[in-house]
């Protein structure tokens, strides 16, 4: 089985979010980048398939040269090879178009992407890859078993979960649950050394298919101070929630 894991390169979850150039650009000063958490869960599941069932694992990112350390980290975790499509990730459609092309050119059986990236939060790339390649698609995937080309997948739905059967080729939007938090791997020294020798292929983008553009960022309005209620006076809390906040 050939697995392609899409890796989004995102600011670490603790990053302070600031903007530059008249609030038109994300300010990268002092920001640490990581593998998008949903993709890390997916990559770990891909490693499980590689080790338990036999599979090759390629990681891919659409982005500039600055994303290569993130791809190297994925190689250090255990992916066999990496591809970087040399284009700025402008909009979900354009990114999906590039990834769909990589998926088709490489005839991958399984494309694992994340449910959403924690920066843009578009939640659109995996579904668009499926739409563009015609592969089957399971979003919010929290369980995935593959036997030959038969697939059993579990999807998180509002208020529960749903099990379905489908077949390869398949695209999933993965998240925590596809593996557990405790299954995640921290790259060790040997992995890091080996990652340096693994192939990282540069691919030039096809025509830009962007359909949207980010024009400006805004920060949420500053919040007023918290109103404290005495622990011995919970009546007051009920009163405030009813009469002031009007939420009960």
């Amino acid at each position: 089985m050939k697995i392609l894991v899409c890796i989004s390169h995102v600011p670490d979850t603790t990053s302070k979010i600031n903007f530059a150039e008249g609030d038109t650009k994300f300010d990268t000063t002092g920001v640490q980048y990581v593998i998008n958490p949903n993709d890390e869960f997916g990559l770990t599941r891909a490693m499980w398939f590689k080790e338990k069932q036999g599979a090759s694992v390629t990681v891919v990112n659409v982005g500039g040269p600055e994303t290569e350390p993130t791809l190297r980290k994925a190689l250090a975790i255990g992916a066999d090879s990496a591809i970087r499509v040399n284009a700025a990730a402008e909009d979900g459609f354009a990114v999906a178009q590039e990834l769909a092309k990589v998926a088709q050119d490489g005839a991958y059986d399984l494309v694992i992407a994340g449910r959403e990236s924690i920066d843009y939060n578009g939640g659109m790339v995996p579904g668009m890859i499926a739409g563009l390649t015609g592969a089957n698609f399971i979003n919010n995937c929290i369980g995935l078993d593959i036997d030959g080309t038969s697939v059993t997948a579990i999807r998180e739905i509002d208020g529960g979960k749903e099990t379905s059967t489908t077949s390869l080729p398949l695209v999933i939007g993965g998240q925590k649950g596809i593996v557990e938090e405790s299954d995640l791997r921290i790259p060790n020294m040997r992995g890091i050394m080996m990652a340096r020798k693994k192939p990282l292929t540069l691919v030039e983008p096809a025509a830009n298919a962007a359909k949207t553009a980010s024009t400006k960022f805004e920060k949420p309005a500053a919040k007023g101070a918290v109103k404290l209620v005495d622990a011995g006076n919970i009546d007051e809390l009920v009163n405030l929630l009813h009469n002031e906040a009007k939420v009960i």
Partner: protein
Amino acid sequence: MSVLVYTESDNGSFKKIAFEVASYAKAVANQLGTTVTAVTVNTTDAASLGKYGVDKVLQVSNDSLNNFNAKSYANVIAEAAKQENAQVIIVSSSADSKYLSPLLAVNLDAGFASNVVEVPVSTAPFTVKRTAFTNKAFNLTSFSSDIKVIGLSNNAFGLVESEGAATAEAFAPALPESNVTITSVDKATDKVSIADAEVVVSGGRGLKGPENWGMVEELAEVLGAATACSKPVSDLGWRPHSEHVGQTGKPVASNLYIAIGISGAIQHLAGINASKVKVVINTDPEAPFFKAADYGVVGDAFEVVPQLIEKLKEFKAQNA
């Protein structure tokens, strides 16, 4: 040219978010000087959409659509868009709508903006405001495509009633073959889901262990709320994964969010910040959550929560 809205249902009745996306579609249609067409699957009460500004309802009735299927549903909406020559298509942010929207966008060669929080800030160029960086910021996104798919953030717009009535029409588009077959659905039908909830009651590691969740559930029951938890609580297996909220869990955009024994780490707050009113109960007055909350009680959850349950019961009895 009307605005098309997909109005979701559960067992034949519209979900509340269906009325919310309809209300929003009406506001967008007013901006564009046009009408609203809704498309629904296996519902009977199409007229109820009229109250939220829908002019025409395309009703699809097909037993093969009883289970949600992203590809088929995306196709139904795409065909409706083609028939109506719709340029703007509105969907909610439910798990199902988020599943189908990217397929819909590809089908129509349309741009897609998710997590939109307001009516478009301009219609030429067509520009919407959406959340980004998991609610740490907003982003203005302009479309260059003719057709635009907008995913409205849940609870961002609310329900707005309008005058008028909706006419219903049967609609029977051809369906593509689907290769995804649902074999089982495991859904707590007696519980409010986090996505639909107006009130969410959430517990953190401060509650010490799963055996202490009885009071969280009781509080949720009194409020008609969904229950949620912080990430370590689900990682420890105290609560199911589906309750994990935050930057890497489910987003919460409820009217009221009550956090019990949760410190308020940046990753937690990022996922729940879109809630309108936040209440924190924590023993530690220095807990970061107090900076993000509207109301706070510095106190022991094991004393405060039972009192809160009692007081809410009294309040309910008086206001019943």
